[in-house]
């Protein structure tokens, strides 16, 4: 798959337009667009400009500290990191979770899916979808939504609040709790907490269903535009349960080629490196993972997240969400399943699934059980994988005999989607920007494409010591005076 528009042959002669920062996403990123004299787009890149370094500075820390520390990568989806790290540490302590521990963690996770998807759809993306991608920027925001459609805004706020309450009750805090620990959890649900959540859960299910219908209605209304917007073909990867059902907490890896054929299925994520490798590029702090079977990141990149999970799982194990999935799959002969804006629809189906799964768990007495912890045979290595709101999240650790972490590798959901996001914005740039005088509204189309993936840029950039650099010294007339390249092994070459 060629990367048209990734690198212009003579960038020094082109006009540069930057969208900096990209707004209504988590973390900090920018988009650069290079245009020729006729305003034809020659190069488009999504750059991740922040740097974190978590994998390095958790080295030497005790393994039981990691689930609490690494969740600080993010303020929106910390539960995902908390749980992925805990799953890895379960392996290090050799534990098989008790039913109560697993169900409390699932409760926490579905609360996270609910709040994160609600936040993204209502607070961050609904202004584009409700008002139009090029609408007046003064009203194209959540305050504008609250003024124009207060019921929708209220629904979004209360759905998110409910998810946050589930997280607080299971982890201790709405953001950055400590509930999940290696081998289990530190609390189950008190009766009064369970009663409080049960009281409102049916409303949450109903609102989540309304949200699915809202985005479905927008697709119906704008069918041609939504289907074509930023559309591209990609390989996919997601976790699935043993019976092929969607499972956001645990399962085996399923990868399919862009043509729908299976690359691998039910693959044990404990050896993810047998199927995935991370590539690096000099212009981004975010890595570019690819399927080993494809040989390189040019051919082997893929996408993850709600659109992949909804379309590539055989079914969703809750009835209302599965009914919506079936409608999504057959809508307009399946056209939405390959649409970049289909991410929003799929995301709302997942939110409905999360609400239904919460309802089922809240009726399960195990969530108030007292058996919280398990132990087993100590292991050196642990790999934890979870389907975070934004996609497959991989945490990999090794701990020495003194219980200190000696190696860590995180492949974060947004990192898997790195090339996919770049593809989407290049398609959109060609569709909407080529040859035109750029306006804020047109440039927002680029951001709309990025927002489909709900990227968390702060989560996705954390590598240290492996990033290549390309330093250019350019004279005022555009002449290249000097250029130094550093590869991923730290070797510098002057060109």
């Amino acid at each position, binding site marked *: 798959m060629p990367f048209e528009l990734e690198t212009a042959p003579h960038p020094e002669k082109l006009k540069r337009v930057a969208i900096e920062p990209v707004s209504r996403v988590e973390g900090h990123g920018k988009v650069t667009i290079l245009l020729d004299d006729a305003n034809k787009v020659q190069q488009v890149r999504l750059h991740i400009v922040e740097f974190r370094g978590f994998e390095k500075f958790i080295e*030497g*820390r*005790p393994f*039981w*500290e990691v*689930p*609490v*520390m690494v969740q*600080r990568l993010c303020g929106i989806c910390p539960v995902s990191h908390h749980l992925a790290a805990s799953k890895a540490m379960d392996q290090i*302590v050799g534990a098989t979770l008790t039913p109560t521990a697993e169900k409390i963690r699932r409760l926490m996770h579905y609360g996270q899916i609910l709040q994160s998807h609600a936040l993204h759809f209502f607070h961050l993306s609904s202004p584009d979808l409700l008002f139009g991608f090029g609408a007046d920027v003064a009203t194209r925001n959540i305050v504008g939504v609250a003024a124009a459609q207060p019921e929708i805004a209220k629904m979004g706020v209360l759905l998110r609040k409910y998810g946050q309450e589930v997280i607080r009750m299971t982890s*201790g*805090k709405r953001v*950055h*709790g*400590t*509930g999940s*620990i*290696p081998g289990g959890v*530190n*609390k189950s649900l008190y009766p009064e907490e369970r009663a409080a959540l049960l009281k409102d859960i049916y409303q949450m299910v109903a609102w989540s269903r309304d949200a699915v219908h809202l985005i479905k209605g927008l697709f119906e209304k704008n069918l041609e535009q939504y289907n074509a917007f930023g559309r591209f073909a990609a390989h996919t990867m997601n976790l699935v349960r043993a019976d092929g059902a969607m499972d956001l907490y645990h399962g085996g890896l399923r990868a399919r080629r862009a043509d729908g054929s299976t690359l691998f299925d039910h693959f044990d994520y404990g050896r993810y490196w047998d199927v995935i490798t991370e590539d690096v590029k000099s212009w981004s702090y975010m890595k570019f993972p690819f399927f080993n079977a494809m040989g390189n990141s040019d051919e082997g990149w893929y996408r993850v997240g709600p659109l992949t999970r909804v379309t590539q799982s055989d079914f969703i194990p809750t009835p209302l969400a599965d009914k919506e999935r079936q409608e999504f799959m057959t809508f307009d002969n399946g056209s939405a399943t390959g649409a970049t804006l289909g991410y929003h629809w799929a995301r709302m189906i997942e939110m409905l699934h999360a609400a239904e799964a919460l309802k089922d768990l809240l009726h399960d007495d195990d969530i108030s059980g007292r058996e919280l*912890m398990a132990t087993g045979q100590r292991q050196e290595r642990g790999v934890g994988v979870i389907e975070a709101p934004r996609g497959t999240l991989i945490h990999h650790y090794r701990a020495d005999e*003194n*219980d*200190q972490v000696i190696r860590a590798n995180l492949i974060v959901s947004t990192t898997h989607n790195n090339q996919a996001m770049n593809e989407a914005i290049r398609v959109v740039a060609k569709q909407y920007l080529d040859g035109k005088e750029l306006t804020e509204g047109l440039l927002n189309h680029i951001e709309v494409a990025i927002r489909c993936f709900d990227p968390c840029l702060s989560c996705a950039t954390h590598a240290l010591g492996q990033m290549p650099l390309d330093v250019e010294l350019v004279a005022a007339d555009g002449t290249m005076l000097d250029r130094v390249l550093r590869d991923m092994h730290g070797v510098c070459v002057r060109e």
Partner: protein
Amino acid sequence: MSEQHTFQLDGEEIPFAAGQTIMQAAQAAGKYIPHLCWHPEFKPHGSCKLCTVKVNGRFGSSCTMEASAGQNVENRTPELDDKRRTLLQLLFVEGNHFCPSCEKSGNCLLQATAYELGMMTPHFDHFYPDRPVDASHPDVMLDFNRCILCSLCVQASELADKKFVFVMGGRGMRGRKIILNSESGRLADTDFSVEDRAASICPVGVILKKRVGFAVPYGERTYDQAPVSAVEVAK
């Protein structure tokens, strides 16, 4: 009939027995004087200076100063709490105290005292010292990043455990540190045990029992239940 001896603490009459320090008498009367290095089981040594009070207008460490009849002791005054906040800020910047991921959070005397005294920021530039973590012992880990040099572990090991595992060594602001009594300098090579009194004396997160971090949920940790001013006087 012997006369009841009292002194005044923030305007309240506090009874005391002969030989008691101001801290001991205040503690017995249920009055909180902020402190870090003082512990009722061990001899006071007045090193953290957080328990500084004004006695008849002059500064003194309440943990070492004997109570005497008629003293006028100022304790929780804005002036003294302001100085205590500064002392706390100095302690926070001298070490690497990252409360968000510290398993002692919620059970930490330093953190709880900072909350009690309303310390909102570190104010001073951080030192970011390069201090070791000793995880060599099978049951206990030492993270010296959080050490405030209270020396309670030294006293507990010496006086309660009779082992002399910890000693205070080095000189100067950056050189002073806890040294382990083994040739290698590692905890694993001492006769330290997780059952020792010294294993549970650390007021901050230096001496940690392994593999139990974060086992107590929010809401059930020591200072979730009550502020340090109530917890400490109940000891």
